[in-house]
């Protein structure tokens, strides 16, 4: 079945791990839908310097492209996948239009777009939902966005209220994604939650775009009900994250069942790590922010107890006792961090260690008592969140 994706084709770069590719939301989602078996057209903008690369990538990924001119390249540059990107190149381009029975559209940095469709799925990114809806005509419309966008757009802190406000935008379905936790689906039938699929490896860049593609595949192209479509979107996002590729079919079968959406205690992660110098504190800040962004609570001794003398030890351990997992920043083998890992292990609290060298002899006791040590920061952060979800659900 045919589908048109309207959205950006952007260069994505990352320092750690090293990434340099031409994808962007539109190109990525188009690749995912093509991989899921759809005749897929991408309506996008491209500059002269990047047009040959766009043609080559699109051909490799099996996408038809209708490209309109923009003045200069657009790049999203990340320090790590957990950081907000710096965006380079914001040249304006003429407005785009898509007309098809099914359209999936993403907010773009260089232009606006309109669409005529029987079924329309909008992933607004940073664009105005009201403006997008005003410019589009569709028989059925779904809005897919993350919790931070939902709160920003509606001004509602409560996600159920935010989803219902967006439903009145109007839309037939609203999906609010909550990172590692799962998300909410709002429709005329009410509000329902769905859980996320845990994976050992996590490449989070673009997994939200893959979610939207998976949702569009199920809801817009296969008439699945909203909840089923959101669960498939979550599965596609996990497969994308595991593969680090928009072509997800080779990874879909590798996934476990989704974790249950938290209903009782909200999962809380203890962030263990040294904070004696600026570099250590910077890492703590980055990781804490990332954990909060993906939807779990965090107890950080630096933030929640502070620096001090021997008196902080009891306060730290009180905080640890109230957490469902530990994310331990192990590089440097800080004695306090290693002590906390041992304490948590004895208490049955799962530990995820982050270290540049996972095979380091210094982690023998940590690995040997069942903890996982990983060298990829995004994978460590998500794994800690999922470990907390499992323990929170079982206690």
């Amino acid at each position, binding site marked *: 079945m045919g589908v048109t994706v309207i959205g950006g084709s952007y260069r994505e770069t990352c320092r750690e791990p*090293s990434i*340099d*590719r*031409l994808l962007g939301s539109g190109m990525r989602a188009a690749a995912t839908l093509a991989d899921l078996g759809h005749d897929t057209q991408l309506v996008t903008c491209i500059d002269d310097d990047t047009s040959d*690369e766009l043609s*080559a*990538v699109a051909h490799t990924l099996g996408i038809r492209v209708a490209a309109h001119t923009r003045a200069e390249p657009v790049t999203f540059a990340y320090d790590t996948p957990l950081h907000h990107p710096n965006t380079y190149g914001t040249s304006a381009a003429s407005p785009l239009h898509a007309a098809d029975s099914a359209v999936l559209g993403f907010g773009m940095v260089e232009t606006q777009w309109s669409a005529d469709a029987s079924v329309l799925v909008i992933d607004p990114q940073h664009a105005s939902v009201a403006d997008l809806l005003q410019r589009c005509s569709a028989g059925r419309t779904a809005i897919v966005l993350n919790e931070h966008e939902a709160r920003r757009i509606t001004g509602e802190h409560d996600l159920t209220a935010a989803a219902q406000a967006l439903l009145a935008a109007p839309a037939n379905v609203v999906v609010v994604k909550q990172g590692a936790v799962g998300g909410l689906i709002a429709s005329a039938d009410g509000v329902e939650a769905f859980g996320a699929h845990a994976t050992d490896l996590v490449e989070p860049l673009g997994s939200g775009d893959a979610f939207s593609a998976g949702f569009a595949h199920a809801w817009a192209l296969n008439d699945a009900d909203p909840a089923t479509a959101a669960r498939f979107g979550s599965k596609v996002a996990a497969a994308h994250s595991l593969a*680090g590729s928009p*072509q997800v079919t080779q990874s879909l079968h*590798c996934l476990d069942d989704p974790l249950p959406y938290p209903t009782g205690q909200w999962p809380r992660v203890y962030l263990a790590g040294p904070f004696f110098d600026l570099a250590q504190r910077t890492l703590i800040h980055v990781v804490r922010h990332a954990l909060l962004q993906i939807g779990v609570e965090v107890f950080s001794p630096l933030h929640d107890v502070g620096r001090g003398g021997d008196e902080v030890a009891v306060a730290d351990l009180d905080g640890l006792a109230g957490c469902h997992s530990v994310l331990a920043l192990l590089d440097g083998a800080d004695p306090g961090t290693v002590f906390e890992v041992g304490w948590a292990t004895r208490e049955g609290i799962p530990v995820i260690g982050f270290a540049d060298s996972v095979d380091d002899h210094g982690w023998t006791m940590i690995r040997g008592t069942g903890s996982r040590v990983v060298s990829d920061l995004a994978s460590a952060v998500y794994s800690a969140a999922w470990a907390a979800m499992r323990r929170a659900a079982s206690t």
Partner: protein
Amino acid sequence: MGGSGGGEPTSSGGSQFGGPGEVLGCGSLEFQAALMSPIPTVASTVAIGTDCEILLEGTPPQLVVYVRRSGEQLGAITERMMILMRCIGAGFAYEAEVITTAPIRLYVRPRNPYLLGLPFTAVLSDVPAGAMLTAGDDFDLRLDSGGKVVAVDIFGSDIGRIRAEPVALADAVRGGTARRATVHDPAVPTVIVTR
């Protein structure tokens, strides 16, 4: 984690595996990449450590990944496409090693030239229907317009392609060190490549 190879290549110059000042970054360009558009029948045969070749071919030009030993097309990569295309255009070559299989991820790095040991046994593919092969038949080796190795008879007609070692064998044919293919097992069929 794969490290970036550094700066952009210069627009001109640079011999293969060139030295300082020739093509910036190409000689140390190493990174991880997801395999795109995997061919399922080939993807199911590779293991961690399988060596692959990366060839720039097709219209528009794409970075196609071949299994070195069999020469079968495994898929393609799109990571760092422009810099790889510029570096390959400047005479550098790249290989890839399979580092995960489910899904397939590759470690891409510059390819050092090596001499293919001869004689060398390979499968002859794309044999025209009706062609009668007999053990001991000799054919000349040539490169087609796409740089692929073909066996031709005394009339210059294609008898089949040799896909294995798609870079090293092509280099050997180009350099004149691999010239003939002798049918070994007509049933498969296999040939023995010699000087």
